[in-house]
């Protein structure tokens, strides 16, 4: 559904005033008086709601909608202007977004733009927003601005510098005594980008790469590939995989074994952040060190975080989307918070001024303080590397308590120490 209308809550005094205002607006003279106050601030975006990225897209959108409802419940921005979202489905495809964003800009004439979830749908609109000089709040795409160089782009994802991902994982592995590395990556966009940086970092550190394979999408059975990986006897196993494959790889590792010399296993497995997958995998997750963006550890709660998840949990069940929603939803909310702070500080919707404010300040959000570097990515990486511990089968609720995913990186959010080798950590 597009143009989701905020759910009516209890009638407040503001709402009554707004209704009165609407009645006034019906008269020609009144219209002029209240228009400035009445017109909503419209934020346009496409979001994958069908296709491969739909699971993430829907969770992300719910995060943004909760932000909208929170802001509107408090009376909106810029002296009472409500937030209105204009959302279209891009079918997880790059070929849909140019027309959608043109519609948003030229026909809907939205005030601000948010990017769709993920890199592929975002890539085609980067040159377009740059050319038109528009602010774009990014949503978990990876290095999409590195070639375009748009100075009004801000990514809500905690990636930070491109190589930080591989660096943090290899740090953990090398500290645990790892002296060689294996790399297994899906032959798809995001995973290949991760694999590339991992190769570069490994080369820089003279870490021998004993296994380096890209597996094709829709691979059914991973046991033979895991067997080959095991035969290479690596110490550090870096996996960059997509949701359907992550489960298959972990299953195969459990069945085939991976060898006693493996110190750490994981790194870039997409999918192990989603509730349904985690519940399905259960105890197979134990020991895996994987990236994440938000986890229910003490160090991760900031102002508003708990309240956000209270609302999210309730609404996710109704909407049949990820019941946990740690990975994307709070960052969707944070996108809203970033833009709201900028609007409040600048006092208008002037795009250049908003961008300038976002670039120059540190912002408080429910996922912690955010500051941007000149390329629009986070100044410092806040990608977590966390180890699964003591997970049992078929239990969604366990993931809500702390200690199931112990944060090993970054230092300031750390909530425990690595258990190595991998086989020991699985028990």
């Amino acid at each position, binding site marked *: *559904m*597009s143009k989701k209308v905020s759910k009516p809550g209890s009638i407040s005094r503001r709402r009554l005033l707004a209704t009165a205002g609407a009645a006034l607006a019906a008269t020609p003279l009144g219209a002029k008086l209240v228009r400035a106050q009445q017109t909503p601030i419209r934020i346009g975006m496409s979001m994958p*709601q*069908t296709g491969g990225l739909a699971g993430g897209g829907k969770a992300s959108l719910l995060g943004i909608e909760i932000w909208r409802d929170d802001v509107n419940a408090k009376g909106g921005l810029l002296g009472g202007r409500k937030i209105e979202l204009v*959302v*279209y*489905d891009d*079918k997880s*495809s*790059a*070929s*849909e977004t*140019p*027309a*959608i964003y*043109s*519609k948003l*800009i*030229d*026909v809907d004439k939205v005030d601000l733009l948010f990017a769709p979830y993920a*890199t*592929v749908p975002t*890539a*085609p609109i*980067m*040159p*377009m927003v740059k050319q038109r000089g528009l602010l774009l709040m990014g949503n978990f795409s990876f290095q*999409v601005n590195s*070639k*375009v160089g748009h100075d009004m782009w801000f990514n809500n994802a905690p990636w930070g510098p491109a190589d930080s991902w591989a660096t943090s994982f290899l740090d953990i592995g090398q500290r645990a005594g790892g002296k060689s590395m294996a790399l297994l990556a*899906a*032959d*798809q*966009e995001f*995973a*290949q*980008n991760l694999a*590339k940086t991992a190769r570069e970092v490994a080369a820089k550190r003279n870490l021998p790469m004993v296994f380096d394979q*890209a597996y*094709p*999408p829709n691979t059914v059975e991973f046991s033979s590939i895991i067997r080959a990986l095991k035969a290479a006897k690596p110490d550090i196993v870096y996996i960059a995989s997509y949701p359907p494959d992550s489960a298959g790889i972990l299953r195969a590792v459990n069945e085939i074994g991976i060898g006693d010399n493996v110190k750490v296993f994981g790194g870039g497995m997409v999918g192990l952040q989603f509730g349904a997958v985690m519940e399905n995998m259960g105890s197979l997750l134990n020991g895996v060190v994987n990236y994440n963006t938000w986890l229910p550890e003490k160090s991760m709660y900031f102002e508003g975080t708990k309240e956000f998840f209270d609302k999210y949990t309730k609404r996710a069940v109704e909407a049949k989307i990820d019941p946990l929603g740690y990975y994307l939803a709070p960052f969707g909310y944070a996108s809203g918070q970033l833009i709201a702070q900028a609007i409040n500080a600048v006092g208008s919707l002037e795009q250049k001024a908003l961008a300038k404010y976002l670039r120059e300040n540190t912002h408080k959000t429910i996922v912690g303080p955010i500051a941007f570097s000149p390329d629009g990515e986070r100044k410092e990486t806040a990608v977590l590397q966390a180890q699964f511990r003591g997970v049992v089968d078929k239990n969604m609720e366990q993931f809500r308590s702390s200690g199931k995913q112990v944060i090993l990186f970054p230092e300031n959010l750390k909530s425990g120490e690595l258990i190595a080798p991998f086989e020991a950590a699985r028990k």
Partner: protein
Amino acid sequence: MTRNSIAFWTGSTVFLVAVFVMTQVVGNQYPFFAGYVILQFIALAVAWSILGGYAGYVNFGTSAFFGVGVYAAVFLVKAFGAPLPLQILAGAAIGALMGFALGLLTLRMQGIFFSIATIALTIIIETTITNWRYVGGAAGIQIQRPAVTAPFDNYVQMLFFVQALLVVLAVAISRYIQNSWIGRGLQALRDDELAAECTGVPTLRLKLLACVISGALMCAVGAPAAMYLQYADPASAFNLNYSVTTLAMSLIGGTAHWSGPIIGAILLGTTQQLLTVTISSEVNVLVLGLMLVLFVVGAPEGIIGLIRKLRGDRKEGEV
């Protein structure tokens, strides 16, 4: 020239002039973005029908041709900074070669076997592109548009006009084929290949010709998509949707007449664009599914067939 031809060429000229005027007058960008996609599908559906409709060889590999067109353009831009016309020409040339290879396949295969072979071909080509690092491989590649050429002041407007040209080209070729000995030969071949061969129809030459023309056009249509998206990745460029949608458009419109695919593409393409910006959810896919089922069940000869029936004109298709 017959009266029909005069009408056709007048219509085409009026269409192109209208498109051109539109690029000069309309400031709003959205019609060009959405219109480009619709034009692209019209050209694809018309090109597909030359082989799939006239000759009855159902090609599932539309996405392979489209994707190769996209990547031909990507390669030329990255390697030589080639201009748009060259990208399209190169796409057409490669498409013709691919079409020739496909035509050779028809030597040994008919019916659904041919269709399955085209699926196999698509996957092989996609895998090859995925493994070709120079054009970005699986990671995809962002490309920059060069400056736009006068008289256009916006690249998408220019692409819109270029795609309109391709549509007219594809339709003109399709129409010519239908009305010439090629079309009659193809139709004979479609009804009964063996009988056609026996009565002296040069089936192999006709099939090769249809494959080459259809392939060249589909690749040429794919080439400007690289500049339209300014991004390419194998999963998007070789998306199964191109194959299914093209097939659906041709069948919904009707393949007995050159105008069928156009009608189908306009109807389905516009519906999809509208749905994207209105309902915008999984219902979108549902509508495509329902339209396919309803049309092939309720209007087996497509919209063209329906119109003929309504007119009570049951004679087979001379224009």
